[in-house]
């Protein structure tokens, strides 16, 4: 793969675009015209774990960008349908890889074209300072697996390309076990954090008293595991063990949904808990606790709409 388009240049998209621009021809598809102009004129600056500047093509219209072999769709989950719609009719030979949280992003993209698809989960994180400056914070990996029309070898090739650019990436023959582990973990930790105001700290693993949060966390994870089982997925890691380990690290992580509600922004509830609940309904698995969390988060969003 020698040419890449990154659609959506937020934190994750900017990190991909900047790093990959060092090893391939990269363009950025943005939503705002002034963002595209700033990128064309000033390039993109990375600070934090790596410090460098790159130049890249940028536009709000796919037709103005060189035809890529790989499209990384890195917009917010809520914008995915719109971004995929803008790609409709373009670049039929490209492989498209959405990197949104949750499951089902590939299905949303698939509705807009016959592209070959890769599926992925990313754990890296950063902070956006300006349209043209992103700070690389957590250098955790992006996991990639085959989707519609692609093979494990395609996933491997993209993972190697990303790794050669300075980011961490790993290919899986089947991503679903890892994707589901992360989904169950995320749907639980994000919603509990957003409703209580607690960062992901030892409260999440406490089971000593009947009102300790660990029981709720366990209940949510058990529901998620039942959905995964019904979907025929054997989990990569046990979400409860991921939870216990993460809360023992010492420095408590602020889940993105907690940051979103504190900043009174829309959350990714539809993509995270929503995708789990939709799968549960499709498979006929009861998930009353996740439904409760989803209702409460949506109501909380409504208070600042």
């Amino acid at each position: 793969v020698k040419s890449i388009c990154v659609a959506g240049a937020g934190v994750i998209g900017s990190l991909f675009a900047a790093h990959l621009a060092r090893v391939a021809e990269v363009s950025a598809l943005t939503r705002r015209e002034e963002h595209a102009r700033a990128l064309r004129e000033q390039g993109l600056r990375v600070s934090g774990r790596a410090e460098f500047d790159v130049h890249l093509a940028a536009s709000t219209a796919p037709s103005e960008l060189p035809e890529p072999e790989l499209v990384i769709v890195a917009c917010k989950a809520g914008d995915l349908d719109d971004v995929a719609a803008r790609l409709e009719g373009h670049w039929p030979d490209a492989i498209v890889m959405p990197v949104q949280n949750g499951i089902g992003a590939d299905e949303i993209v698939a509705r807009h074209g016959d592209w070959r698809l890769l599926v992925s989960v990313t754990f890296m994180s950063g902070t956006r300072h300006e349209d043209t400056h992103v700070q690389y914070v957590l250098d955790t990996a992006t996991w990639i697996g085959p989707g519609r029309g692609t093979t494990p070898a395609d996933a491997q090739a993209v993972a190697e390309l990303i790794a050669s650019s300075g980011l961490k990436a790993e290919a899986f023959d089947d991503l679903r076990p890892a994707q589901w582990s992360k989904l169950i973990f995320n749907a639980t930790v994000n919603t509990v954090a957003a409703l209580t105001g607690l960062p992901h700290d030892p409260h999440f693993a406490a089971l000593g008293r009947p009102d300790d949060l660990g029981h709720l966390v366990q209940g949510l994870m058990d529901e998620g595991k039942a959905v995964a089982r019904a979907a025929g997925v054997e989990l990569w890691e046990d979400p409860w063990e991921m939870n216990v380990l993460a809360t023992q690290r010492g420095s408590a992580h602020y889940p993105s949904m907690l940051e979103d509600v504190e900043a009174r922004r829309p959350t990714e509830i539809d993509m995270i808990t929503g995708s789990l609940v939709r799968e549960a309904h499709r498979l006929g698995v009861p998930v009353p606790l996740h439904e409760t969390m989803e209702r409460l988060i949506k109501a909380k969003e409504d208070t600042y709409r």
Partner: protein
Amino acid sequence: MRICVVGCGAVGSLFAANLATLDDVEVWAYDASHEHVEAINSDGLRLTGAGDVTGRLRATADPTELPSCDFGIVATKAMHTASAIAATAHAFADGCVATVQNGIGNEEVLAGHVERVIRGTTFPAGKLVAPGVVQWDVKGDTTLGPFEAQPAPFAEVERLADACTRGGMPTAAVRDARGPQWRKVIFNAATNPLGALTGLTHGRVCEQPALRRLASQLVDEGKAVADAQGIVLDSDPEELIDYAARPDVAYEHKASMLQDVEARRQTEVDYLNGGIAEFGQRFGVPTPTHMSIWALVKGVEASWQQ
């Protein structure tokens, strides 16, 4: 007749100020807030809003000042019951003590300190807006009945109910007061935490179909726990939820638990959802939604320690 209100917050003040308008009742108020006590003693206890009343009464933060009383009306937050009654029990050695607090389990605590206990449930609500001044948001009825394990004589229950009613707080004396109490506990546990977790007033909680369904789920679990104890609810908490959501009732009312969360004060969730969950466990009735809500609100409280 001498009555002491123990815990003169919003609800306690509604009783104290209204009772103080009666010529045949001498009202005392015991409250831990010195500012509030001083304001009441110098300017009276003033209610505004649903009713404008200024009651002249004796307030104190020093329990040893309390004379012997015929009745106590305990209106503290549920987590303060034990310390409040331990400090004031001497005043009720020959009297009867009623609770008008939220939640389940207050009567049992009172019974550990005084002989004759009255189970009570009250619906009026308000908030303390300044020392000595309470905004009366919602009018409503009160029900009193003998506490089964350590009952006050029914004639005494009737005497207290009559005084409250004459004072402007309509109150019924009933033989079994568990039905109204569980109806209110279920109502509170089904709605207060939803407001506290989302920031919404009662009316806005009820407008959202998804949240309204969640409230019904909490009601159903609560009803099953009441059923298992042979308690007959005096009416359906669902009706109360919809009634309270009316613009002329409590649409704009922020539930006390939301007020607590906004002020970062410990909430009464242990006595509401926690109480239902504990009774559920005792009687073998699963209450997964109450358990979850209980844990979330405790999590909110824990987040203030960060």
